[in-house]
């Protein structure tokens, strides 16, 4: 799942993930409110509902009630976690990264025109995130 307010990035991300064979299907949402609704409906009423395996959240989601870090925090602490989750942002602000870490983000991917190498590196580390053995990592 990708939560990002920029529609063009949805296309870029979907194609990049598909080319790198990272995703089988991608659900791209424009706001954290939409994602919140989905997670709310899955938890606690339907905790066994098939959740996305991995959630990429944009840091600043324009037009949403809460930002990416708050979304990560909600998914981790209110909706029972159960998925690999991290931030994808063009920012590399140290304070924000620390906040994301505290909220339970497992990775931070820096958005740029050339995102494929970072996604490929992320793909290689993915199993470690699933097993929770990988430490927090920034993909620059």
């Amino acid at each position, binding site marked *: 799942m990708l939560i990002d307010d920029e529609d*063009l990035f949805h296309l*870029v991300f979907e194609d990049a993930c598909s080319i790198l064979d990272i995703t089988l299907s991608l659900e791209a949402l424009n706001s954290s409110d939409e994602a919140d609704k989905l997670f709310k409906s899955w938890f606690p009423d339907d905790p066994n509902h098939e959740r996305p395996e991995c959630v990429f959240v944009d840091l600043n989601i324009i037009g949403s009630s809460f930002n990416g870090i708050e979304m990560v925090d909600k998914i981790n602490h209110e909706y029972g976690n159960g998925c690999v989750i991290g931030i994808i942002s063009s920012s590399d602000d140290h304070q924000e990264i620390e906040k994301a870490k505290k909220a339970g983000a497992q990775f931070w991917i820096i958005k740029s025109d050339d995102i494929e190498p970072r996604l490929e590196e992320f793909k290689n580390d993915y199993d470690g995130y699933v097993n929770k053995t990988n430490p927090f990592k920034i993909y620059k």
Partner: protein
Amino acid sequence: MVEVTEHTRNVLLEVAKKRKIYVEGSFLKILKAPKGDKEFEDYLALCKEKDIAVRKKRLEVTKQFQSQNKDLVAKQEENDSLMKDLQIALEEAKLSEQEAEKLRDDAVEDLELMQKKTQFELISTIVKVALYVIIGVGILTTVMYGLALFSGADTQIIGSTWSNMFGILLTNAFSIVGTIMGVKYATEKD
């Protein structure tokens, strides 16, 4: 993974050969060739190759579009910022104009006041001089009349002249004193 049936396999291969239509998208990733079916394995590999080529092309175009969009957004922000600066500059210019107008009005007022003061001072001087002349003439005529009286000379002409002149001088003196008071009052008020 979905292993295709023989019928589906044949249809897919035929469509690819005759119409150059290939399976694409996420569905392609879950298709599996029957074991040992080299032809269908090659077909799936070709499908994947074509799918990746199409996605790469689309990705490039999307990236270009995204980059142009970013530039446009940046330029729009720059324009907005310039417009804001322009608006501030216009407001400042308007304020300066108002200030300049006020200063000009004050200067004109001061100038008018100075001119008035100068005029009043001039009038006052003229009137004072006139008053001194009147008093002087009055004193002179009185002295001459007094001398004539004491010396025993004929005072008929000088007497009537003195009385006429004194009457005229008094009338004029009152008028002049009135003018002086008026000028003083006007000057003090300004």
